[in-house]
């Protein structure tokens, strides 16, 4: 497959899918069930608005979503209370599959959602989006509903302000451009076709999700893309331009932790797939500096990028969804 063709055919602007009524008709024709998953940890400022918007526009007005669920990692603020007020199903991550223990991280919530939610398609949307709009869900769902060969749809955000010439730089955030894109360029050149591989919004078919291992931390998006690419090829992936996304900005130091987690997850995938040789034992500590008066001292953060096995390997999951051994 030619990467330029893929970029041309599988990169779509959300405005192509403005006709939600038609989308719902097609969804109903196929008898699909769709779940929206909002993974949360202390998002009281933005969660209410997201739920109100999705419920009103994509459940009450146009029945595109069958389920809106919050999977919470134990928020200490009012996230869960607000979410329940506006009619979302609120699940504590720790209460789902408790026999498998509780691990901390967004990937953990996404993984548990595969068991808890019942849709044939799950659309994941981060809960920290300030300018929430129904397109964040229907834009990602539409390619899956209209194109059977597409299994995994990723969001990207690109809204040029004033730009006089035709060419302008585009791409992802700092971690994407400094870490992930160089890594993909070296080891998985096709995946460089994704404009923002780390965006937290994507829609995926269940038959794909249940077969993916889930790193529980920062590496989940990168790892997913590599696995989907290896198992189903680039044809199964599409990306949708959702225009602007307004969210809080992260400090460079926090991005360092994120990069560390992603790098670990990447290396493990690459090793497992035989793309690189055998890895030595890798440290789980990221070391950063701080200055204490005149002296410099190191601060070590432990970032364990554990992995959850594919959901389909769990007997509880196979029983719930009636999957034979």
């Amino acid at each position: 497959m030619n990467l330029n063709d893929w970029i041309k055919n599988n990169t779509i602007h959300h405005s192509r899918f403005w006709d939600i009524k038609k989308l719902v008709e097609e969804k109903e024709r196929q008898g699909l069930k769709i779940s929206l998953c909002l993974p949360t940890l202390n998002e009281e400022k933005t969660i209410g608005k997201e739920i109100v918007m999705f419920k009103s526009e994509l459940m009450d007005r146009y029945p595109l979503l069958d389920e809106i669920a919050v999977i919470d990692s134990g928020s200490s603020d009012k996230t869960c209370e607000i979410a329940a007020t506006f009619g979302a199903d609120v699940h504590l991550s720790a209460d789902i599959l408790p026999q498998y223990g509780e691990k901390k991280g967004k990937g953990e919530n996404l993984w548990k959602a595969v068991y808890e939610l019942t849709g044939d398609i799950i659309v994941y949307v981060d809960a920290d989006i300030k300018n929430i709009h129904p397109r964040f869900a229907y834009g990602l769902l539409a390619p899956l509903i209209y194109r059977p060969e597409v299994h995994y749809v990723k969001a990207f955000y690109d809204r040029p302000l004033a730009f006089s010439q035709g060419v302008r730089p585009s791409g992802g955030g700092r971690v994407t451009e400094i870490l992930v894109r160089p890594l993909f360029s070296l080891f998985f050149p096709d995946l460089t076709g994704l404009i923002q591989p780390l965006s937290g919004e994507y829609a995926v078919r269940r038959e794909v999700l249940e077969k993916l291992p889930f790193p529980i931390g920062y590496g989940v998006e990168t790892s997913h893309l590599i696995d989907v690419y290896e198992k189903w090829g680039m044809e199964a992936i599409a990306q949708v331009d959702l225009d602007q996304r307004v969210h809080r900005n992260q400090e460079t130091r926090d991005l360092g932790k994120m990069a560390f987690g992603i790098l670990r997850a990447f290396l493990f995938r690459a090793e497992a797939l035989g793309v690189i040789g055998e890895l030595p034992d890798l440290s789980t500590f990221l070391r950063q500096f701080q200055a204490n008066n005149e002296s410099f001292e190191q601060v070590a953060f432990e970032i364990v990028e554990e992995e959850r096995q594919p959901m389909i390997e769990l007997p509880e999951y196979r029983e719930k969804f009636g999957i034979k051994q």
Partner: protein
Amino acid sequence: MDTQFKTINEIMALLPELQEGAAGMQETLIANLIMLSEIPAPTFEEKDRIKLLLQRMLECGLQNVSTDEAGNGVGIIPGTDPARNILLVAHADSVYSGKADHTISVLADEIIGPGVADNSLGVAVLATLPNLLEALGIQLNSNLVLLGSTKGLGSGNLDGLKFFMDHNRLPFDAGICIEGAQLGRLSYTAVGMFRGSIDCRLPEELEWQRVGESSAIIALNDVINRILEIPVPRRPKTSIVLGAIRGGKSFNIMATQSSLRFEVRSEGSEIVQQIRVCIEDIVADIASKYNAEISFKIVSSREPGGIDIGHPLVKSCRQVMEHLDLKPRILPSMSEVSELIGRGLPAVTLGITEVSNLHDLDETIRIQPIYKGLAQLFAVLLAIDGGFCNEPE
């Protein structure tokens, strides 16, 4: 819901049901509120907000959805009797600049953001009303004309509503103006008012030796002193508010320009007129004294008027409020209702919820009282529709 009533008390008995029905549509109303609020709509720039309002009305299946030369947005919910019409108005413009961050936050019991109360909530009620009436099973006899009006605030001078009333051909039985703030508000009288600005300019080439003798600030100061000397009667109740002054550049630079914005309001229209003439005289006098160019412009004005407290529309509103344990707060108004009353249409302004930080960037509305506010609106609509608000022939 059966909407034929023998007495107004039958409507009062429905209030709990109306309130519950409104609460059932919470997400639709709030989603509309968010989307409308997040589109900036300073006066004269309401176009995009009106566009969304019309789109929402179309999505509800309303047939007569249109805009006019003044940019107003209008939709009609058809009734069973084509001869009868009730007008519902919410001004679509807000006091916030388009540059302000219009992001809205939704908490469990509050919604926060610029303009949520004044008047995104009013417009959101218009946008959601077709869904609300459908959910409640309310079919009115009268056509319900939903108007999102433009150019309402400040120097907009209610121009949108005026244009609509000048060119509309439907005869209205009554009008209700919807404002987010405050629940319990009841306005059915208008005070006479004008808002003016006085701009003072002095020639640039003043010599430094003359510093202190003359400057645009000193000239304006004289104007202000003279305005304060104007005798203001206690009855009819009258006031002059000096709202804002601007002028000059820095500590030591002779001011060559200055301006004053002020408002005169009175329950008597003659008084308003007299004060206006006084100010014109003062301006002319000071201008000649300082050899300055002083202009006096009227930015907007209203005629005083109102319907009587005993008018059946006002009585019905009070009765509804009392049944909802709301204490009516009767305020004379200078907003949309004054224009309707001035044209002889019985009209009131109703508020929808409890509001704090009005006109700040963190303007806040409380969610729970909204349902009471809506129940109030439905009940008044039913009362008008049932003929309980007509003046005896």
